[in-house]
């Protein structure tokens, strides 16, 4: 099983988000070039799970974010940490607006 989130990107717009079920999970959003802008999770505090979390991401990054991909999981917290560690491994640092998470994210060296 791959540890990265490797699903195909989908277009980030209200129509696609409204079609999602309200489950819990993790997601990435990216710009038109596929550069990841945000790695997030939809936890149990979200009224409609991943749908609510992505609606908020549109408000926050809608001017540059054009794509998203997601994964449903009840282990959203540990999976989110894992994706942040993988992001650091792959790109050397976290997305710009998430750099304050660096101090609590661990180190991962996948083989």
């Amino acid at each position, binding site marked *: 099983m791959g540890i990265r989130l490797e699903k195909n990107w989908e277009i980030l717009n209200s129509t696609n988000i409204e079609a999602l079920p309200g489950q819990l999970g993790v997601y990435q959003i990216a710009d038109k070039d596929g550069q990841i802008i945000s790695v997030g999770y939809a936890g149990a505090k979200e009224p409609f799970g991943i749908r609510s979390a992505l609606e908020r991401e549109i408000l926050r990054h809608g001017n540059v974010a054009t794509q998203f991909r997601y994964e449903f999981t009840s282990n959203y917290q540990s999976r989110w940490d894992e994706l942040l560690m993988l992001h650091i491994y792959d790109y050397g640092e976290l997305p710009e607006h998430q750099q304050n998470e660096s101090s609590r994210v*661990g180190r991962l060296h996948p083989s």
Partner: protein
Amino acid sequence: MNFDLTDEQQMIVDTTRKFVESEIVPAEEHLDPDAGSLEPHDFERLVTKTKEMGFYGLDIPAEYGGPGLDTTTRALMAIEMSQHRAGLYNPCYGVFGGAGLAQLYEATDAQKERWLYPTLRGEKKGCFALTEPSGGSDPARAIQTKGYKDGTEWVLNGSKLYISGADKADYALLFARTSDDPGRNGVTAFIVDTDSPGFFVRRVVHTLRATHYATELQFEDLRIPEDQILGEVNGGFAIANDRLSRQRIPYAAGCIGPAIKAQAMSIEWAKSRETFGSLLAEKQAIQWMLVDNEIDIRHARYCVLEAAQKADKGLRFRTEAAMAKLVATEAAGRVVDRCMQIHGGIGVTKDLPLERWYRELRIRRVGEGPSEVQKLIMARDIIGGSFK
């Protein structure tokens, strides 16, 4: 055994209970139901409070600046500290401080300077790397990570599994086979910095604990200077085993808190919820579940306190610690299961902490030696003879 609390113990229990109710529960109310940490400002504020209370660094021995609590008092505190949503695995979210790896108190002075004291000052974190893919219940025989000596260094190759905190640790206490002895006399404990070449955190292992993960480690020609051996060459298993025995008492005590809290919630619910024209509390089916819960909770508490008191008196407590671990983990699981049943639909939602305790308590029957291993330990002591 006398289970009456001393005046001092009662004061400590009361203070801890009030702290949990007035500080921890409100601070976690707005967090994600699976959160494993407080907001940083809450954490810092509450650490300041526990320091003012004189309770910071609970498990640090008195000679190293800790409060010097005996095992019984520490167990009583563990029961109180775990009475909140995250309390089973994150009692009070760590605001009472940690003590680092207990084995480091047996380290050389140079090793203490390098790893123990920075840990006590909160500057470094360690992890305990014992279990391997080949098994964890019988570590003496399961360890396949091999070490050989090359000049003044040891070279290690192998892997570890289900290791907590390795991805954030500055150093690891790592056990490897260093002789041809296939059992307990061939294992050495090493202290190694996690940024050493050849030390890799290969993957995250997700578990029922949604907020916390374990890791898998790999060592590829990991070179460790011989002065980083903890204790004696081939004497590492005794170090690991000592930790496993001592851990069982607080591990068991921590399970009782969520059970007590779940029982209190269920009594409250039963006294207010009506079905078929009467309160749940008036129905024998519910009454018996609550009584069974009370029996389980008291049984677990007695076992934990008996083990703790024997440890405090310097008596053999291996059987009692194993029994406490088995009874408390299994009893607490049953209690929370019944409480979910009493609550019905809302009991399985993330609106209440029951579902988190239910998931996490299942792990407790496996962690720190599964129930079956505890029975094996007790059988050896009870039957004696060749089993010793």
